[in-house]
């Protein structure tokens, strides 16, 4: 490699790491903003946007308790989830649509990193040895399995106009050709992806993040035996995952403002843009959740089949235009 490409690679790496830092800073705010919006619409004062930060600080100071009979998975699981979310934040084009030459932000790789976190959480739930942990884990994995076809077919639909599954290419292509955003194929694929994001991050109508009723919870059931800093890692990891996926949807819908060159102003603009997009997405999510009820677990496949059909129609529609 020549010096020029080395410098580009190093710069890209710096930008990606900056992106990770930005997203880690944003993630608790996203969770806070969602809850706050919801509270305000429901006529409550709400705990404020900064509450998740305070929660993390509180959890870190507490003594973690682990259930008797658990293994190293209970300690390692939360950290694996956190690391997978961090890697996700580095891979997905959020602040900047640039990618390293050897680690392109290939969507299939992104999905598999996401699944790594999913699996870590599911094993954590199983390791607790209680009925709830297993229940949450089983439901979580079932949903993850049924989401998979939608994800890959939607990815396929998005990749057809670009001829590549690299996310940064897809985002820049959509920015350069705004007509493709409003095309039926593009809209259908993004709608399908939104359903997937809701399912993967445990939001309504698939899972109720605010529930503590044992029989309905999915995510909360898995982390029932987790406490103290272990719980803090799980929470930060989950928030980060939500923030990254919302940011990705934001960039697919409004691909403007993403930095495509490695200059300081462009990156700063990218930071501001992603902050705004994620904030809007979080507020919309909070507002939408006011009007949604949790689906019965056995109605979830219908929702996912519906989103699959949308993704499939997106593929068919993009062939039709061809």
């Amino acid at each position, binding site marked *: 490699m020549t010096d020029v490409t080395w410098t580009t690679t190093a710069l890209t790496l710096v930008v990606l790491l900056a992106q990770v830092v930005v997203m880690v800073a944003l993630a608790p705010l996203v969770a806070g903003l969602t809850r706050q919006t919801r509270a305000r619409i429901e006529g409550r004062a709400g705990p404020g946007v900064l509450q998740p930060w305070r929660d993390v600080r509180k959890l870190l100071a507490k003594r973690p308790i682990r259930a008797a009979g658990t293994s190293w998975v209970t300690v390692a699981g939360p950290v694996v989830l956190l690391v997978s979310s961090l890697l996700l934040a580095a891979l997905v084009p959020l602040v900047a649509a640039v990618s390293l030459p050897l680690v392109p932000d290939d969507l299939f790789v992104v999905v598999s990193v996401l699944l790594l976190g999913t699996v870590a959480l599911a094993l954590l739930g199983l390791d607790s040895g209680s009925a709830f942990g297993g229940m949450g884990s089983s439901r979580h994995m079932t949903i993850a399995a049924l989401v998979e076809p939608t994800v890959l077919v939607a990815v396929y639909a998005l990749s057809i106009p670009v001829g590549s599954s690299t996310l940064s290419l897809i985002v820049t292509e959509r920015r350069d050709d705004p007509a493709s955003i409003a095309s*039926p194929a593009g809209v259908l694929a993004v709608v399908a992806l939104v359903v997937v994001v809701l399912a993967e991050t445990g939001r309504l109508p698939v899972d109720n993040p605010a529930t503590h009723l044992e029989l309905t919870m999915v995510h909360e059931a898995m982390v029932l035996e987790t406490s103290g800093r272990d719980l803090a890692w799980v929470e930060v990891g989950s928030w980060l995952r939500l923030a990254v996926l919302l940011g990705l949807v934001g960039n697919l819908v409004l691909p403007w403002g993403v930095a495509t060159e490695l200059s300081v102003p462009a990156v700063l603009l990218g930071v501001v843009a992603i902050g705004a997009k994620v904030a809007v997405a979080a507020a919309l999510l909070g507002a939408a959740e006011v009007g949604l009820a949790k689906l019965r677990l056995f109605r979830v496949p219908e929702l996912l089949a519906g989103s699959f059909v949308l993704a499939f129609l997106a593929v068919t529609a993009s062939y039709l235009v061809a």
Partner: protein
Amino acid sequence: MHLSEAAFSQLVALSTGTLLVTSVLFVWRRSLRAAVRLLAVQGGALALLVAAIALAEREGELLVTALIVLAVKAVAIPLVLARGLRADGAALRDEPRMNPTTGLLAVAGLTTVAYLVSRPIIDATRGVAALLAGGDAEAGPAAFAVPVGLTMVLVGFLLLVTRRRALSQMVGFLLLDNGIATVAFLTAAGVPFIVELGVSLDVLLVALILAVLSGRLAELFGAADIGRLTGLRD
């Protein structure tokens, strides 16, 4: 007023896209009220499609047709059905014979079938257009509309086969009719508006009769489950 090529194709894409998605939603949702609302949306999308063609080809007559479509399909029929729904009084949900997940996958399959069989039709219209234009022509709006219309016809049939309530049958029939209209407007370069007027009124009449009938059925049997009609033979 003249519509640019790009705006025209955007409008066609938007309306056909809406038609397609609403057809999927018919299978997805069980609530009859939602089905009636979807019918209104679909009628609007169909009217938009006709209006777009009218503007692109600068035909005043077609614009009138668009208004008729809007009045009948987006307003009158949904109103009639909503009244029927109130008269029916029984549960507002239909229990389909096929579970929605299977139904949705069937829709994916039917779309594929529609897409496959409409290829030759698209090629044929392209050929005719090329012949008329004396060169090669774009596939044009027919490329969008034929498979979408065909999908709507097939999904309409699916609803007719799998739904139990008389009102859902009506919805299936209307979906089928919308599908035929979609194909007709775009392939045969429009339908004479007198014909469209007649067809629309016919459909409205059918809707009225069925709405009344389903109300009577509900009075007699408690619910308009047409599965029970088998008890009427002999």
